[in-house]
């Protein structure tokens, strides 16, 4: 037996999964509170002791881990035009597993500079201008960032003609600065992998230490990676498969959390209907988005605001609730973000599920592309922005608010297209799978060393809900 110990240091819980790679089975699971404020090893050791008790030994072939503790990898990104370099920089940061709190476009204002001070990100990804194009935005924004009092690292991935000068400005302001290739070197061409690699390197060099994960890093066999990056890699592997184990094909995954909702698509987003053409940038096959205003606890008020925008009555009617219940539940969750819709709060179960359903619906619409009809002398055409995900076959739901709900299927159904979604290119008729064992992140870690086992475990453990 080759046992791999896979640990996810979450914001609340440290979750440890033990996998037997030869039989491709999860053989033990334990969780304990994340003790990042004191010594993260305390919680980790407790979980490990439980694993050892379950297994009868503590003989581990390898120990790998991911972390979203201490706020995860908090990033902001910036670009010039919202739909071009700003979007490219956001895609790059999200694909590296960051919690992208905010994306800025054009020249940063004083108010935005104050906002950045308040956000105090771990890393900023600074882009703008294609190579040889606009320099002003990079130089101006470098000036602004240089004078932000918070200390964080800056990755410059913008117009290469201005990158060196921008770096000088930032370094003079005391910011640790790295230059990498432009996220959009030519008009409309995405190039997010260099920025993704630069983020990974900074995470290893600086962030792990800053987050108090140094000691635990020493006993790991691989550098700690951000949890969403592990999930990203698990989804990519499960979709594509590898030479010896077939994947599921095109898929999407949702991780509904307390602060954010993460959406992954592993799918070719090209037009699926005739007379359609792509408007704007062609998005990557493997795409992650992270919605900071869509979450079940810390972002519940923000989610509620979004719901109100599209009509409170529709919401109450659709989910059999009312204003009083909703307001009460909001208050309860605001006071105690660890509140769960069970026991004394059982009566709010349908309200919590209603929020979860809308979280999925809204984050799905934002992730997917959309079509607009254009009428031309040559007939009607469809101008597609973003990815066409209509033919995606599988949608995976994960996160406590989905898995522990009375009816996860009803929540996840909102990942599929309904007439309320207008012209959004969401999956039309996907099968819905649940990550009941909460193993996505662990499988992402395993994917780097034992991909076949990881694919098999995911295929076995993701249950289809009818």
């Amino acid at each position, binding site marked *: 037996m080759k046992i791999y110990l896979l640990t996810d240091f979450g914001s609340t819980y440290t979750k440890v999964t033990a996998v037997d790679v030869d039989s491709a089975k999860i053989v033990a699971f334990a969780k304990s509170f994340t003790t990042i404020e004191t010594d993260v090893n305390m919680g980790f050791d407790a979980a490990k002791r439980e694993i050892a008790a379950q297994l009868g030994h503590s003989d581990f072939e390898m120990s790998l881990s991911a972390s979203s503790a201490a706020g995860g990898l908090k990033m902001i990104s910036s670009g010039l*035009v919202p739909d071009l*370099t700003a979007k490219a920089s956001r895609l790059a940061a999200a694909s590296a597993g960051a919690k992208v709190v905010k994306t800025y476009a054009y020249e940063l204002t004083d108010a935005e500079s104050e906002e950045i001070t308040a956000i105090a990100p771990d890393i900023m990804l600074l882009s703008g*201008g294609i190579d040889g*194009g*606009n320099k*002003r935005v990079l130089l101006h924004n470098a000036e602004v960032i240089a004078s932000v009092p918070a200390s964080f690292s800056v990755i410059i991935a913008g117009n290469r003609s201005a990158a060196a000068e921008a770096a000088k400005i930032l370094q003079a302001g005391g910011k640790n600065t790295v230059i990498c290739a432009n996220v959009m070197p030519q008009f409309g061409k995405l190039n997010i992998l260099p920025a993704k690699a630069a983020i990974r390197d900074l995470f290893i060099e600086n962030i792990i230490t800053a987050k108090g994960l140094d000691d635990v890093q020493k006993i790991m066999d691989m550098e700690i990676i951000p949890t969403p990056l592990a999930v990203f890699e698990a989804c990519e592997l499960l979709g594509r498969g590898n030479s010896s184990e077939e994947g599921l094909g095109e898929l999407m995954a949702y991780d509904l959390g307390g602060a954010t909702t993460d959406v992954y698509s592993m799918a070719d987003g090209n037009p699926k209907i005739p007379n359609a053409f792509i408007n704007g940038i062609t998005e990557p096959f493997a795409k992650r988005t992270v919605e900071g205003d869509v979450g079940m606890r810390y972002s519940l008020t923000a989610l509620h605001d979004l719901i109100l925008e599209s009509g409170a009555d529709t919401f109450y009617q659709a989910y059999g609730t009312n204003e009083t219940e909703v307001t009460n539940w909001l208050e309860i969750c605001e006071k105690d973000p660890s509140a769960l819709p069970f026991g004394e709060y059982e009566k709010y179960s349908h309200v919590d599920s209603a929020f979860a359903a809308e979280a999925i619906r809204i984050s799905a619409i934002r992730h997917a592309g959309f079509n607009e009809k254009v009428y031309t002398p040559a007939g009607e055409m469809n101008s597609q922005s973003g990815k066409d995900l209509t033919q995606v076959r599988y949608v995976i739901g994960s996160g406590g608010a989905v898995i522990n709900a009375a009816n996860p299927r009803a929540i996840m159904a909102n990942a599929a297209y309904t007439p309320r979604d207008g012209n959004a290119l969401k999956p039309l008729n996907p099968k819905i799978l649940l990550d009941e064992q909460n193993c996505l992140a662990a499988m992402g870690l395993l994917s780097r060393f034992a991909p076949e086992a990881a694919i098999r475990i995911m295929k076995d453990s993701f249950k289809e809900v009818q």
Partner: protein
Amino acid sequence: MAELGKIENEQIEEVGQEQEAITLVLGVIGADVHAVGNKILNYTFTKAGFNVVNLGVMVSQKEFVEAAIEADADAIIVSSMYGHGEIDCKGLREKCDEAGLSDILMYVGGNIVVGKQDFEQVEKTFLEMGFNRVYAPGSDPLVAIEHLKKDLGRVDK
């Protein structure tokens, strides 16, 4: 870049401005799919030493404007071949102004209106729309190249 491009580049620098090559955003506006002329223009302008951001066919006004912002373009070169140029081009100058591209040059050419209309009238319409130069059907791109250099102050007036 090709030989010819280099020569042209040197000539441009010779005119006394130590600036980089002139950046053009090029495309066929609206729902127009006529691709051949666009390919020729792209080839010709690139050979002449311009830095060309070619958007191809079926280009919306928004795309022209956004590309010009990111590329810090000196000029937008619009083609319209299928006769709907007037509708497609209306408002482009205003969008540029809105985006802070107020001094950007805008040229238009191709078969910009339906059939054979009086070109003077057509030119007037497009100049009023905010284009700096308007070209009659069959105009030689080399003429536009000379105009660009002149309008951007890269040759002696």
